[in-house]
């Protein structure tokens, strides 16, 4: 590791070369192991792994990812049925959890730890040590100067260097000074922070969890924080349902304002929070301003409308559906369905005719266009609500045990003839009633607002944030501080050049240990200061 260190820290860097692989004397597995470890912890391997990491991240931005947008993955599967299974087996839809992506970063971080632990040890040693003795020939160093007419008193020079915050040691006839230790300190802090970031991420994935769901306004639709009540949820490996904090949430109101162009201006959801065993309270949250609860944060992701529909069946019995319609564009044109599987139950026999189930499917327009066909909403707020529905009667196929979408009817039932469309569809305004061919009625009563929300908890977050801050703190000196050394050595003056009997020569050498173009200037300043410091009285008497 010492070799590596030299390469990393001694300047001028290009003169030193990568060491050739150490020759293996015995073909023992131990030697092989040691060799591999050396390879793994070399800067060059780190570089290759960094490059691989960047490369490996690319497919994740090209292919849809399950943990980013699962619907898109489904779309991709439908569009490329042949390609999908192959890519899926390769982890193409879970790139950032795939074995190959993990392998790269695990190797990279192993390399990192293997690299920085010895460097930390060396650096601690260097911090406690004094600057090393001067090389024999100072004139071979990148910078070199000779002070003639010096009184040979090195203590003034040492004081001058200390004032400039150099670390100084005076040995017999020689001053050695070094500066810029902060570079390596920063560098190590930076690299260790990287490890800490990874640790925080890992902690979050073990102990964190999240769940998403849609929440319709009103007390009937309130939800409580359990896994069953999320439409989609993911718990870390070390979390189970019982660990989730208990609270219930009811959407009491939702404010949205839009510009005349339809662009959203602001959103705010008002809720009633009921923490387990404590008094309920009102709160509100919005985009960029989540609801922070004890052990969970609630984020507003989206919103839309849920039409309220009342269906009255052949026996005069009414059922109400409040089902969210999902928006498909910026003006909140929304598509969805309402199902009435338990209608037309004969009150005399109590028997349900499975072929007399009813469902409606269609589009909701918060603002229906005034003329032309109603295919798209023209504004996201409810200025002229309209609901275009198609009616279906027959077997909805819901009893087969296969969970279907709640946003669309099962087209397979239509295709095989068990579910039939009745009539041609109808555009309903709020309050309007549509009477079907069998005399049953559908009333469009209005809408409720809904929001989509995400409930999340990530205990690693604070660690990641703190490590990221340290990373930045370390990076700055690592990049901007320069490590350099200077030596001053008294040599006896040749008889002919000395003007006074006391005077001697001081030879100065400078070595920038990292690429540092301003070193020459600094060196010259030091030399000038040394000259002044050492010969003040003589200059003044001259």
């Amino acid at each position, binding site marked *: 590791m010492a070799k590596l260190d030299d390469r990393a820290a001694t300047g001028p860097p290009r003169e030193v070369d990568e060491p050739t692989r150490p020759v293996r004397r015995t073909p023992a597995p131990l030697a092989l192991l040691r060799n591999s470890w050396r390879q793994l912890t070399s800067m060059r391997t780190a570089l290759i792994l960094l490059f691989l990491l960047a490369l490996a991240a690319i497919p994740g931005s090209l292919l849809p990812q399950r943990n980013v947008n699962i619907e898109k993955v489904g779309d991709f599967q439908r569009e490329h049925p042949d390609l999908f299974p192959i890519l899926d087996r390769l982890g193409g839809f879970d790139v950032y959890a795939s074995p190959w992506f993990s392998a790269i970063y695990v190797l990279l971080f192993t390399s990192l730890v293997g690299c920085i632990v010895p460097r930390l040890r060396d650096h601690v040693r260097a911090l406690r040590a004094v600057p090393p003795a001067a090389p024999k020939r100072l004139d071979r160093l990148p910078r070199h100067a000779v002070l003639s007419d010096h009184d040979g008193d090195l203590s003034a020079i040492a004081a001058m260097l200390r004032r400039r915050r150099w670390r100084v040691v005076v040995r017999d006839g020689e001053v050695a000074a070094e500066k810029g230790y902060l570079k390596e300190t920063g560098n190590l802090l930076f690299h260790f922070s990287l490890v800490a970031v990874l640790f925080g991420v890992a902690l979050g994935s073990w102990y964190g969890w999240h769940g998403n769901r849609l929440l319709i306004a009103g007390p009937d639709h309130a939800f409580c924080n359990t896994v069953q009540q999320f439409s989609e949820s993911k718990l870390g490996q070390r979390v189970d349902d019982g660990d989730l904090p208990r609270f219930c949430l009811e959407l009491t109101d939702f404010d949205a304002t839009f510009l005349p*162009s339809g662009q959203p201006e602001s959103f705010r959801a008002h809720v009633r929070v009921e923490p387990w065993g404590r008094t309920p309270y009102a709160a509100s949250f919005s985009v960029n301003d989540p609801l922070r609860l004890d052990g969970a944060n609630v*984020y507003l992701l989206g919103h839309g409308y849920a039409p309220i529909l009342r269906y009255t069946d052949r026996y005069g019995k009414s059922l109400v559906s409040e089902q969210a319609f999902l928006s498909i564009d910026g003006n909140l044109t929304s598509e969805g369905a309402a199902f009435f599987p338990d209608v037309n139950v004969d009150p005399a026999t109590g028997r349900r005719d499975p072929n007399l189930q009813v469902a409606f499917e269609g589009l909701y327009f918060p603002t229906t266009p005034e003329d032309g066909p109603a295919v798209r909403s023209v504004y996201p707020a409810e200025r002229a609500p309209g609901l275009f529905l198609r009616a279906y009667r027959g077997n909805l196929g819901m009893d087969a045990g296969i969970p279907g979408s709640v946003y669309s009817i099962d087209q397979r039932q239509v295709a095989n003839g068990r579910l039939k469309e009745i009539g041609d569809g109808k555009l309903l305004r709020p309050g309007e009633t549509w009477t079907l061919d069998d005399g049953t009625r559908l009333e469009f009563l209005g809408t409720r607002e809904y929001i989509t929300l995400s409930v999340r908890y990530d205990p690693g977050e604070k660690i990641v944030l703190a490590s990221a801050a340290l990373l930045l703190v370390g990076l700055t000196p690592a990049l901007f501080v320069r490590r350099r050394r200077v030596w001053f050595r008294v040599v006896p003056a040749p008889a002919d050049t000395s003007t006074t009997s006391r005077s001697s020569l001081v030879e100065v050498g400078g070595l920038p240990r990292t690429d540092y173009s301003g070193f020459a200037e600094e060196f010259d300043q030091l030399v000038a200061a040394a000259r002044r410091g050492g010969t003040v009285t003589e200059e003044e008497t001259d």
Partner: protein
Amino acid sequence: MAALSDQLLVVAILGYLLAMICHAAEYAFGTRSLVGRAAVRPERELALVGAGAAAGPVLDGPAAEVEPTLSDGAAERPDGDATPRPAAGGGESASKAALAGGVAVGLFAIAAAVHLAVLVTRGIAAERMPWGNMYEYVLAVTFVGSVGWLWLVSRRTSIRHLGLFVALAMVLLLAVAGLVLYVPIVPLLPALNSYWFIVHVSAAALSSGLLLLGAVPAVMYLIRDGYDRGKRSFPYTLGARVPAAATLERLTFRLHAFAFPIWTFAVMAGAVWAEAAWGRYWGWDPKETWAFISWVVYAGYLHARATPSVKRPVATWIAVVGFLTMQMNLYGVNIFFEGLHAYGGLD
């Protein structure tokens, strides 16, 4: 105000164009041609100069002096004319070159001031920071690059020859912004309405601008290095009159080393914002993914440069790749990918 901003953009582009022409003139008279010797084959340089002259017909003030030379230097001018001239009449053309270069920097500074005015008027008209969509963001990034460049030349005139390429980049990027990315002013989407908008986007624009600027010496270093190694085909011939390879390489490193912590901060600020807005600090959204890729590539560049066994041209290539990933993130992701970062404003 909004209309004024749009008009000022045209003025700024013209200003950069004029600066580019003067730099081209300086280039043509270039003092470095003595080094370039007869081996230089300047036909393509001349084509570049000719194109510049044709595109900016109006030159006034001191710049007009150089115009005649430029216009008879139009594309059909026979080979090799520009090179012998400065070689022969060194002193005179060197002073002409210096004059043209000085004027070029002056024009560039004026263009940068107008560029600033474009941003300020846009911000006043929109009543917010002028980086709310891709058009404005590109204007802000290029402005950073422009100021960074002026700062660099003011400290070190020896790199002034690079001005031709910096000005060219400005003209191209601003033209793309004005013609392709332009969107009328609208207020911010709710998702952008946060003080992190100021922190995150300004840091991103600042670092992107510096990295954009850093790409110029990086590319020129690669060209110069190829030229020094005896390559005499097209892009390498440009290397004849740019600063010495070591100067370019050091400048490349300085700019990247300066920009990298800012870029790191920008990514982190983005993560903090993402936590507040979307509930997670990192979610591999395409924009985040490409920011990560750029960060890793630039970290790789700094690493490579500190690794003695990696040759400087190889390290510099990594910086160029980093630049390409930044462009991918700016244009590619906004235009081709769907993600949460839907603020490009393009349909």
